[in-house]
């Protein structure tokens, strides 16, 4: 449709230079992490960059020092569910908030943004007490289950995700919806057949954000999980812990485990970033 050269935002050499600079800026410390993961703990702590004592075995050790395997599985389950649900719920909410005018709409949008400003440390004790009391009242186990943790993450991720979808949906022309309505489609069909396919970029961002929230959080996971439902983020903490008085943290394994834990997210992004392509609305209005 659009000749690729026309859609270029920057001249090639400028683009290449910028990317190079950004890559160095981003990758330099990451290279340090990689080198540290192959080094001995004492050498890492002393600040050396190039491994003097190669320890690729760190990548093997991490699986037995903590239960990283089950931890990763739990993390994938929880963060994955949170991401998918968050994207769907926020899409629905955003659609309502953008396309339908009603009283209190502005207030809801403002409240959503305001909720973003609440620090987690303020909420962790009250949330725990709330769940524990509910568990007692209903005689059902809540603390230590994956779904309770997932529900908590979902709640924290929703305000931002909704706002992302709102911002994104605002940019979609309303004419598309109207055309569909004229053709006799109901609101649900408009949402699922027209709006959803066009919202991929927004959904990808929402999804990544929600996934990362569940993937990296330690504060809530450390109080709300049992040894079986422990997430990778909590397991990772053990690598960084020091025994007071002289056993140093296993830095090599910490860095190795950090990289291993980053892989699923990066792979997911690699898969979904192809949806971050322009031209989705092309031809739609015509």
């Amino acid at each position, binding site marked *: 449709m659009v000749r*690729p050269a*026309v859609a*270029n*935002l*920057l001249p090639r050499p400028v683009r290449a230079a910028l*990317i190079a600079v*950004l*890559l160095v*800026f*981003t990758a330099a*410390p*990451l290279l340090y992490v990689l080198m540290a993961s192959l080094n001995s703990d004492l050498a890492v*702590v002393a*600040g050396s960059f190039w491994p003097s004592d190669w320890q690729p075995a760190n990548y093997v050790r991490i699986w037995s020092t903590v239960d990283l395997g089950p931890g990763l599985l739990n993390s994938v389950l929880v963060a994955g569910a949170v991401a998918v649900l968050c994207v769907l*719920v926020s899409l*629905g*909410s955003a659609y*309502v908030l953008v*396309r339908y*005018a009603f009283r209190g*709409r502005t207030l*809801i949008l403002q409240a959503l*943004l305001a*909720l973003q400003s*609440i*620090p*987690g*440390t*303020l909420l962790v004790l*009250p*949330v725990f007490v*709330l769940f524990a009391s509910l568990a007692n009242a209903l005689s059902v186990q809540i603390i230590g289950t994956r779904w309770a943790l997932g529900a908590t993450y979902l709640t*924290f991720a929703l*305000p931002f995700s*909704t706002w*992302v979808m709102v*911002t*994104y949906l*605002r*940019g979609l022309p309303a004419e598309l919806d109207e055309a569909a309505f004229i053709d006799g489609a109901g609101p649900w069909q408009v949402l699922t057949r027209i709006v959803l396919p066009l919202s991929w*970029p*927004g959904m990808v*961002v929402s999804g*990544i*954000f929600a996934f990362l929230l569940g*993937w*990296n959080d*330690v504060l809530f996971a450390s109080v709300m999980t049992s040894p079986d439902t422990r997430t990778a983020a909590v397991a*990772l903490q053990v690598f*960084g812990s020091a025994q007071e008085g002289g056993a140093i943290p296993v830095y090599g394994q*910490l860095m190795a485990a*950090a990289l291993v834990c*980053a892989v699923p*997210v*990066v792979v997911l*992004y690699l898969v979904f970033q192809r949806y*971050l392509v*322009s031209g989705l*609305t*092309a031809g739609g209005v015509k």
Partner: protein
Amino acid sequence: MLVPGGALMVLVIVVPLGTAVEIALLDLDQYTFRQWLSAPFIGLGNFATALDSGLLHAIWLSVAYAAVVTIATVPIGVTAAVATHNHFAGRGLVRSLFLVPYVLPAFVVGTIWRIILQPQGIANQLLGTGGTLWLNGPRSFWALVIVQTWASWPLIYLLTLAGLQGIDPDLHEAAALDGAGHWAKLRRIILPLLRGPVALAAVIAFLHTVNAFTLPFVLFGVPSPRDVEVLPVLTYVESFQNFRFGVSAAMAVASLILVLLPLIAYLRAVRLDRES
């Protein structure tokens, strides 16, 4: 369609928030918190204690730090988005690599940068400033800014990239027909259209940075050096090390109010009802 999300948010955020506000009015510490419902009510006493414990200094530091980080990350994020918007060989990999600083857990980022910023560490070696103190003293604020910028610019980048995809390709055609060069097209068409996503990204980045706890905690430890005694670390120390839960809750509530004020001003300025 709003009900399930709304119900969850009320349950998991609003109710605990109410509890937290109530705690802020109680004299809750390690002696009374076992029976917390019967802890003595001291009204605004906690807020007074909080002011004596460095609350204002911490709020000022947090706001300044968040503002500087936001100002630094927005240009970097937008530039990266603009540079990786168009197709080139290896674009997927570059885009994914850009994401990694944001993906790494904050405490890993803190740990590695703490080693990099040691007085005899690699940062000083490369800059030739051997022995300079980054982890304490006046430079510590800038160390925190630099590390947080490094870790959080991908968020801006992600949002801007998504925004770029939403721009109608016909606009590119029209600009080409008009003979507009790259810079003119960027300045006149693309960047104005990105205002929405970038503004949102900036606000979110600001809020997240104000509340960022793990990075300053791991980078500088507790007690924090005076120059980086940011609010989340202060509330954490009050709560989990000094056991003054009431004071800590009061600090968090006070900061919440203070952050909300400019936020509400921003929301009014941005006309929310542009679409209807």
